[in-house]
């Protein structure tokens, strides 16, 4: 794992609050035993009109955002189901970061472990960034995880992220498995001392 200190790319607005994980990856795409084929299912039900089977005018279908690697959204992004299929489908669709007003916890943790930073910005800053992206869809946004700032055009905005996630990403230790396994003796000591069988 390498450290993730910056993410640079263009962005697509997927606006609204409470974008839940059923919307991100509908359950019908979860009949699978690997994550490999999830990308086509990402936001499928809002990207495709169920009656006509045609693409909707959702920003994710807009050719001007075709190269986007950052998602912009509102409050409580990723709420609902714990399905890791949700961040996996986003990551496997080429996205590398999400900027939103706030995130649901399980989604946030799943994304961090995957190495896809979820950073928070204020509603006003996201609105301004969205307006910028609408006008300049190809412009690059730079997310600086060490200083928790995002820069686009002449503008720099403040970001927030829990210190533990920031440390995990910028140190390259966002997948904790090897560190968890290294503490085997301490694990066994806790297991021995559990106040139940």
């Amino acid at each position, binding site marked *: 794992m390498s450290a993730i200190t910056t993410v640079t790319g263009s962005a697509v607005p997927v606006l*609204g*609050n*409470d974008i*839940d994980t*059923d*919307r991100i990856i*509908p*359950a*019908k795409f*979860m*009949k*699978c*035993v*690997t*994550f490999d084929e999830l990308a086509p299912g990402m936001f499928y*039900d*809002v990207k495709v009109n*169920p009656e006509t089977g045609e693409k909707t005018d959702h920003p994710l279908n807009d050719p001007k955002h075709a190269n986007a690697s950052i998602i912009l959204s*509102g*409050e*409580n992004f990723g*709420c*609902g*189901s*714990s*399905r*890791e*299929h949700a*961040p996996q489908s986003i990551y496997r669709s080429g996205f590398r970061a999400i900027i939103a007003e*706030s995130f*649901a*916890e*399980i989604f946030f*943790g*799943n994304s961090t*472990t995957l190495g896809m930073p979820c950073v928070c910005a204020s*509603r006003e800053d996201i609105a301004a960034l969205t307006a910028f992206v609408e006008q300049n869809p190809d412009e690059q946004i730079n997310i600086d995880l060490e200083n928790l700032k995002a820069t686009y055009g002449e503008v720099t905005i403040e970001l927030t992220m*829990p*210190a*533990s996630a920031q*440390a*995990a990403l910028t*140190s390259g*230790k966002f*997948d*904790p*498995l090897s*560190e*968890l*396994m290294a*503490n*085997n003796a*301490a*694990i066994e000591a*806790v*297991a021995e001392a*559990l*106040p*139940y*069988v």
Partner: protein
Amino acid sequence: MGKTLYEKVWDAHNVGTLSDGRTQLFIGTHLIHEVTSPQAFGMLRDKGIKVKYPHRTFATVDHIVPTDDQSSPLKDPLAEAMLQEIRKNADEFGITYFDLASGKQGVVHIVGPEQGITQPGMTIACGDSHTATHGAFGAIAFGIGTTQVRDLLATQTMAMAKLKVRKIKVDGELRPGVYAKDVSLHIIRLLGAKGGIGYAYEYCGSTFENFSMEERMTVCNMAIEGGARCGYVNPDETTFEYLKGRPYSPSEDQWDEAVAKWKAFASDADATYDDVVEIDASEIEPTVTWGISPDQGIGIGESIPDPANATSDAEKASFQDALDYMKLPAGAAIKGTKIDVAFLGSCTNGRLSDFREAAKYLKGHKVADGIKAIAVPGSQITAIQCQQEGIDKIFEEAGFEWRAAGCSMCLAMNPDKLIGDQVCASSSNRNFKGRQGSSIGRTVLMSPVMVAAAAVKGELADAREVFGVA
């Protein structure tokens, strides 16, 4: 200074601090199902890692199981492949698996308590957000992603940041026709779908003390719909009574010692909380949702909110989005909204007491013409208990289809799905867009008795009027 149950359980399972500052937390019981675990076993195989404590993981199959024709092989080849995969993984790694033929299969959050696997003071995790259900026993239980399922299989530990604790104290008696589900929907309405982010919820007060374990499970189940990753109730005599004699409960000679240890986990009287919310139980109405988020709930006697009355532009937009999707008129009465489907089941309300209570009122009534009504016991054991009491017959005589155990129409990973823009009166937990299998399907959440009332009337109705509940 006293400690909360959350802090005590956390301390007893704290393995150490990781380099990013999070805690390495030991998980006493790991539950798995077929949807979120196969990828984790794949990761273990790729790395050549064994399961560290196979006896601490329990498996069942629930999401993809058809509730009508379960003959083998399953008709859906994708579902059959998932079923084969969990069988193979359980077998290869030595994990106890409650298969379809075991007589113990069911929704994972119903099976754990039923078997006595869920116990006070435990940490419990499962790749499913409704794992908070197990908090009803005074366990710290939460949903995790698949990579964490891998971490648990490999080490029985995971990285986690400690949560704050909010005490939600509900006192008083619920009025007739008001149930645990209404308490749950009321709390979420009050605090919002994201109100619990960063918190564990401790549910307490006389209302919870008087609740049965099944009622406590209903409320803890939906902690996540209010944004809280876990919710719990302090263990008491009701908890111990429920656990006594279950297959995985401590044996008689270990019982007193186990109870003493369990009691010690309960929050101390002088524990401090990061936040406290107090609710008067008598103010809670039979509640239904009108929108596309579980916090968009109103009393059955109330009107559908009008975006014109929203308190902010963001709220106005979300109200409008919800009304457009639900095709409901702003300001109109919610009562009388036509339904197409009635669903009684799920990890929220698929237990014996849910069917028993609904059957009590359903007896002698008929499902309205044109309504598809299905009743889906949460587990094979629940199904047998219902049969023993004749509950299945009452449902069938009323015009419900009585099905086999599974998640069914809660999330539509099996053949039970809404069609087109059908409206479903549902005892499940989520009314998200497309949740019940149709991308334009509409879900209205409510208690089991309210589902029965809606089924009988063919429209959203006040069960107290329909059944003369008093």
